[in-house]
């Protein structure tokens, strides 16, 4: 028992993991004190062996437990000591990951598409360089209409059909292409580039619009109001946003309306034009206006982007200035 106490004291006094290992070897190693004792066991009678064996097992267990406990304690102390010396400056900035920005116009188009998408609209497209027919004639814009003035419309040399080519002045020609291609019911939006010959603080020669059109047998102005109210409230993220529909005039709609919103203040701000598709437009697209009807709308994407995000200078949209893009642009993960 002296041996046991001696070993337990040695364990208790071991101050390092190596010291503890030495104690373990001295007891349980090949030539260890306990190992030696065990060797004697073979020369005993079976009865003595059983008795002593049991006592040895208890001793062995007791010492092993003491060794483990001490080992755990010493490891813990070692780790604590190490951790006090292992420090890094956590205030240093993290490793940067490459991060570019999405242009606000793309982000807004994405938002527009998803809002109207939720109402059952799909996206249609048409070319930027349009034939006069799609841009004007089919839309019931007569030859003498002011919109056809050279000052407003960019012209290209006429094509093989003698039809003048124009840079589309609105996204409305997509209405015509869609109606000529398909059958009602039609429900599309058409975002895209548009062009007008105007360049000052509030006009750029290229800008973006989104067009929408619904043609079926029963859609009326009440639906138009509901559709645009929902869009504006979702887009401007204001469920109480006030809208005002007031009569207006467009050659391609009848009745026609312009829509104002009351955004951040009590002033009405005009944001879009709309109306019921003009019977002549339907007829031009081989759709019987006595059977079908529907609404159409068009709005400037830059305009609603500026309003929503408080962007003041229109021209900077097209300047590619990284300072502006980093400020007004959107991170990839900002997409919903």
């Amino acid at each position, binding site marked *: 028992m002296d041996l046991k106490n001696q070993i337990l004291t040695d364990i208790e006094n071991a101050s390092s993991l190596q010291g503890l290992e030495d104690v373990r070897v001295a007891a349980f190693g090949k030539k260890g004190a306990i190992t030696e004792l065990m060797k004697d066991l073979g020369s005993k009678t079976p009865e003595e062996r059983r008795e002593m064996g049991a006592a040895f097992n208890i001793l062995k267990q007791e010492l092993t437990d003491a060794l483990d406990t001490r080992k755990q304690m010493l490891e813990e102390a070692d780790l604590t000591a190490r951790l006090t010396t292992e420090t890094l400056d956590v205030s240093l900035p993290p490793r940067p990951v*490459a991060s570019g920005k*999405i242009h606000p116009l793309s982000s807004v188009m994405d938002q527009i598409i998803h809002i109207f998408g939720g109402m059952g609209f799909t996206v249609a497209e048409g070319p930027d360089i349009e034939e006069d027919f799609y841009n004007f004639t089919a839309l019931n814009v007569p030859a003498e209409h002011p919109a056809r003035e050279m000052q407003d419309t*960019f012209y290209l040399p006429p094509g093989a059909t003698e039809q003048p080519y124009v840079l589309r002045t609105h996204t409305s020609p997509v209405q015509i292409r869609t109606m000529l291609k398909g059958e009602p019911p039609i429900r599309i939006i058409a975002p895209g580039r548009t062009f007008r010959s105007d360049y000052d603080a509030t006009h750029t020669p290229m800008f973006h619009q989104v067009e929408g059109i619904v043609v079926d047998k029963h859609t009326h102005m*009440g639906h138009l109001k509901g559709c645009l109210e929902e869009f504006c409230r979702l887009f401007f993220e204001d469920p109480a946003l006030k809208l005002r*529909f007031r009569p207006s005039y467009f050659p391609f709609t009848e*009745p026609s309306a312009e829509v104002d919103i009351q955004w951040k203040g009590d002033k009405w701000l005009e944001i879009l034009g709309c109306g019921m598709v003009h019977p002549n437009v339907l007829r031009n697209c081989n759709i019987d206006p006595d059977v079908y009807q529907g609404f159409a709308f068009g709005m400037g994407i830059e305009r609603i982007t500026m309003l929503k995000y408080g962007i003041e200078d229109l021209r900077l949209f097209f300047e*590619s200035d990284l300072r502006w893009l980093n400020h007004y642009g959107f991170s990839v993960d900002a997409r919903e």
Partner: protein
Amino acid sequence: MKFTLSWLRDHLETTAPLDTILDTLTALGLTVESVENKAEALAPFTVCLIEEAERHPNADRLQVCKVNTGTEVIQVVCGASNARKGLKTVLGRPGVVIPSTGQALKVGNVRGVDSFGMMCSATELLLGTESEGIVEVEPNAPLGESYAKLLGLDDVLIDIDITPNRGDCLGVLGIARDLAAAGLGKLHPPSLAVIRHSDLAGCDTVTLQCDTGVCPHFTGRIIRNVKNGPSPEGLRKKLQSVGLKSISTLVDITNFFSHDRARPLHVFDWDKIKGNITIRASQEGESFEALDDKTYTLKEGSTVICDDTGIISLAGIMGGKSTGCDETTTNVFLEAAFFDPIQIAMTARPLGIISDARSRFERGVDPASTLPGLEAATKMILELCGGEAGDIMEAGAAPSFNTPIRFRPERVESLGGLKVAPQRAAEILTSLGFEVTGSGEAFTALPPSWRFDIEREADLVEEILRVEGYDKIPSIPYGVRPEAKPLSPLQTRRFRVRDRLAGRGMTEVVTWSFISPKEADLFGGVPESLVLLNPISQDLSVMRPSLLPHLLSAVARNQNRGADAVSLFEVGPQYTNPTPEGQHMMAAGVRAGVFQEGNWTQKTRPVDLYDAKGDALAVIEMEAQGDRATPSWYHPGRSATLKLGKEVLGYFGELHPRIVKAFDLKGPVVGFEIFIDRLPLPKKKTTAKSKLILSPYQAVERDFSLVVENAVAAEIALKAAQKADPVLIQDVTLFDVFDLGDGKKALGIRVTLQAQDHTLTDGEIQDVCEKVVASLTRATEGVLR
């Protein structure tokens, strides 16, 4: 269209408050642009009399005046040269704000003399007129009277936006009619004047010849022995109140009818007309000096009014200088006519003439107002200028454009979304001047002569809706269950491409679709068919053949602002011809200078070809063949074309040094262009991914260092290694490229081996390695190091 509240009240008896009138105008589609109450700013300025004016003791140019305000006499120092004893002028007292400066007046001391007010010029009062010296008020103006009131400015000025279809509202009467229909009061239509003529000598010696093809209806009459001069106060103030200049009584009368009834008229000095009056179409190259002192050269086919000497008026647009009326005019020829709106627009537009007559005839003047207009104006001329009127000369007849429209009142609800009783619908139309016949479900409505824009049922629906108010239309939630995703896979790709490129650190820009021919030429040029006929400037005169030029210019601008790491992309169109097939949707990007700004964890490095390759592959997301031949704007040795079969998907590489120089860029500059709509859409119809089999057996890696000529493409070696044993070789990667000099390089190739059904034995591994070496050396003529 500007009008005052008091002018409106000439035609509309109403008790409605201003706000109601303004809201109703907008609700009717006559959108209120601005409301101005000049009286507010001018209210404190009153009429005063200079009783004495003496030279300032210490300044030659100043006078010290004793000024009678109507209640007291005060001292005012004045620098105006026209300040003089006996002059009635306009006074502001200390505390009032001078409109031109926004500053409040104080009691002043000018070179030792106290001044208790300021006598004002028209400029200082913001009355818009060029003025020398202080305002000279007419001698009989009452002292102390508000100057605004004296000017007739104590009235609210309303400016409304008139849509192109509402020419009738370019007259105050038309506006009043709309307001009355909307229930804001009672309309007082002007009474019809009929003038008895006297038998004037000389009239029958003149003939009127009118080509009714160019002018459907022309009327006129001579009025003799008129006295022209300044207009009487009432007429003058009325015109001034809406910003019209008072010229002379005769001219003012025509302007009055133009503004009041949307009925333009013209007065010729009869004595300046030589011979007979002819209305005809102009011939190419004829010229004409107009009242604005400019000479216009006409194209063929404009309507002109001529005497025997030539053109005396550009019909419906502007009168001629040679026959204009002035104070000496005693005999006048008054014209009222109907001109074709389209013809007026086509004539005036290219000439750039803007006039009140043009804007009205262009939108359409009531064809039935020709004779009543002539009579009413005659009546006013006789009243204000005296004289005797001659017989009416007339050619053609008032055209009638409108036909009855069948109208189903239920269409107001089924098209307009608002339920309106048939009786109410009829009432509205009648109040707007329509002749309604029938009742219940079977109406017929004949539009009034002044409306050119009503042709069909839908137009009638709009009329009823706008009078009832669009705000009354109940809003119905719109939405049907989407049948499809809003974007097609092709369209979705454009948004994904944006996300992916931004995720790679590039920033999206949006640039013009047009560029300068010089830049276009650097990128292959454009055909004649893509040259704009009327560009906004030479720099934006052709449709771009590539997105790169604008991207490169954008890089240069950002570099000039000090940015070192510039990487930009755009998803947008480029053009090869004007047909829809010639317009390609592209994704293109450029990186210049360094790849990201350096930071504490990582030094920066210059961008290179492999950045652009990574960008390009991120866009195409598929395997493509490479081809060394690239367009001229790429570095010939450091670029490649990506192809799928024969179809070009795009290019990537370093930009040609010539391009870098042309755009004045700090290099290196790399870029890519991908025709994103040419990328094939994924074919699979299933959403399931290919089956993954995970081998439970150990994989082993073996590295090879292969020495080859520089010209040998690494891809050849990698493919050769893979081919050595397609079953056991799971992966081949290039872990190093080392330049050995002497035109040779070492490729470090790592091959991963694994079997699905057992652990590879040393012998198997040895066999595969030997096959890899053989395949590598055979394919590349290289040696293993």
